[in-house]
C-alpha cells in the first residue's frame, strides 16, 4: 500500500478532515488528519483498510501545539501506517481510539499522564505509570530535568 492508496481510500470518508498523506520510510504512509474526524478515520482504517493491530499511541509536545500519533499494522498488507493529528496546546483533546482498538486503553492512559492530552470517551482514564494524584506531565518540554520539582512529601507516622 502506498501513500496515494491511503489518500484515495480515505478521502471519500473524511473529506476535508483529511489533511494529507505523506510518505514515511518503511510504512504505507503518514496520514495527517483533523481531530474532528478522529473516530471516522479510526473506523475506516480499522474496518475497511484492515489495520487491525494498534502498535502504539504517543504524544509529542511541539510547545505551540501537541501531536498525537498512532502506529497501526495490517496483517494483510504486512505494513505499518502512521496516523497523526495536531491538537492546540490550550485545548489538548482528541477522541479515544479505544472503541475501535481496545489496546489503545493503556497507551492513551500513558499519553495522557505524560503529554497531557485528554482522550474523550476513554473508558478508564487514570494514572498508569505515575502515582495517583501526580499533577505533572513529565514529557512536556516545560518539565525540566535539571530543576528539582517541588513536591510536597507527606510522611505518615504510625
Amino acid at each position, binding site marked *: 500500500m502506498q501513500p496515494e492508496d491511503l489518500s484515495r481510500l480515505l478521502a471519500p470518508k473524511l473529506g476535508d478532515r483529511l489533511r494529507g498523506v505523506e510518505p*514515511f*520510510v*518503511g*510504512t504505507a504512509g503518514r496520514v495527517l488528519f483533523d481531530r474532528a474526524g478522529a473516530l471516522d478515520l479510526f473506523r475506516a482504517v480499522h474496518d475497511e483498510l484492515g489495520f*487491525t*493491530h*494498534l*502498535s*502504539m499511541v*504517543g504524544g*509529542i*509536545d511541539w510547545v505551540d501545539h501537541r501531536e498525537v*500519533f498512532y*502506529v497501526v499494522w495490517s*496483517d494483510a498488507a*504486512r*505494513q*505499518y501506517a*502512521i496516523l497523526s493529528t495536531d491538537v492546540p496546546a490550550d485545548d489538548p483533546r482528541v477522541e479515544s481510539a479505544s472503541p475501535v*482498538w*481496545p*489496546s489503545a*486503553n*493503556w497507551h492513551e492512559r500513558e499519553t495522557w499522564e*505524560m503529554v497531557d492530552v485528554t482522550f474523550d470517551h476513554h473508558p478508564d482514564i487514570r*494514572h*498508569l*505509570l*505515575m*502515582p495517583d494524584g501526580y499533577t505533572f506531565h*513529565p*514529557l512536556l518540554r516545560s*518539565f525540566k*530535568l535539571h530543576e528539582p520539582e517541588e513536591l510536597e512529601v507527606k510522611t505518615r507516622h504510625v
Partner: protein
Amino acid sequence: MSEMWINMGPQHPMTHGLWNLRVRIEGELILDVDPEVGYLHRGIEKISEDRHYNEVITLMDRCCYVAGLAWEHLYILSAEQALHIAPPERAEYLRTMCDEFQRIASHQMWYAAFVQDIGLMSPFLYAMRDRDLVLDLLQDYTGARMTYEYMRVGGVRNDLPPGFTDRARKVLDWLTDRFREYDQLCLGSAIFHKRCDGLGILKANDAVAHGVTGPMLRSAGLKRDLRKDRPYSAYDRLEFDVALADGADVTARYLVRMEEMRQSVRILRQVLDWLDRHPGPAIAERLPRWLGAPYAPIGDEGYLLKRSFPKGVGLSSVEEPHGEAQAYVVNEGGEHPYRVKFRSPVFANVSAARQYLVGYHVADIPPIMGSVDVCVGEVDR
C-alpha cells in the same frame, strides 16, 4: 461467598518483578483483574531527550534486563533512520547474532522462572546452567553479561575476538541436545500438563484487538513475526521458520518458545558461517564526530555541523523475545533526540490480562502469568 479484591504483588513470587496484579475473586474464581504497573518507572523516554544519540544506548540495556541487546537494536535502527546513517553489512549480521543469542538467553530465563512457578525445580537449574553458556559468549565479545552497550549508531562497537565462532558453534551443539531434555522434563511430566493444558486461553481475534504480540499471538495460530513480515538487519537473507501453535493456551505458548529457541540456533549457525567468510568493518566509516565524542571539544567541526545536519524521524520495529517492540525517534537537528517513544510488547500483553485470566482460578494465575513472560523493566521503562 462475598467478593473481594486481593493484591498479588508488588512482592509476590508470581510477579517476577515489581508490579501488582489486583484480582477480584469470589472464592477461588477470578471475576476481574486490574494490573498495576509503574513501580519501576525510570522515565527513560524523558532522560533520552537529554542525552546524545549514543548515550541513549546505555538506557536501552536497562529497559529490559533479560533482552538488552534486542532493545539496543531497536533504538539503533530508529536512530539511524532519523539521522540518515547506514551500517555496513557485517554490522547487520553481528546485530542479528546479538538478537538471536539474546532470544535464547531470554527464553531460557523465561523457562527457568515459568517451570519453577508450576512446581518443577530441576528444569530451573538446567536452564540457568545453560543460559550461563550463552551469557559467556555474549561476555566474550561485548564484555558484559547484562548491560552490554555493544551497538552504536552506524554499526557495533567492536568485532568478534579470535576463535569466537568455533566456541559459539560448540555451545549451539550443546544447546541443541539440551532443548530435547527441556522438553522431556516438561512435556513428559503429568504435573506440567495438569497445571498448563487449557489454561489462559486467548484466541487470535482477542489477541489482535488487545495488541498482544510475540509468542502469545503465535500460540493462537496467527503467523506474525516481524523478522519475516518486515525484515530488518540480515533476516531477509537467512532461512528459518516461524514457530506456531494453535492451542492458544499456556502449553501452546511453551511450545512456541521452545521452537523459537531451536530456530534461533538454526539462524545462528548461518550467521556464524557468514561472519567467518566475510571479514570487513563493523562500523560505518566517516561517522559524524559528535556521535562518538559528544562532550569533547571538536573544534570547527563540532556542534555547528550538527545544527546543519538534516532533520528526520525514525520508526523501527523488532521482534523482541517478548513480541513486537517499536521505537519512534524524532531528530529535530539538535544534539539530542527531540522525542523518543518506545512500545514495549509486554506492556500490551499485560494490559490484556483481563482477557486471559477472568474465569480461571486463583491457583491458575502463576502458570498463566508465567506463560506471558513479564519483564517489568520494559513495561515501565
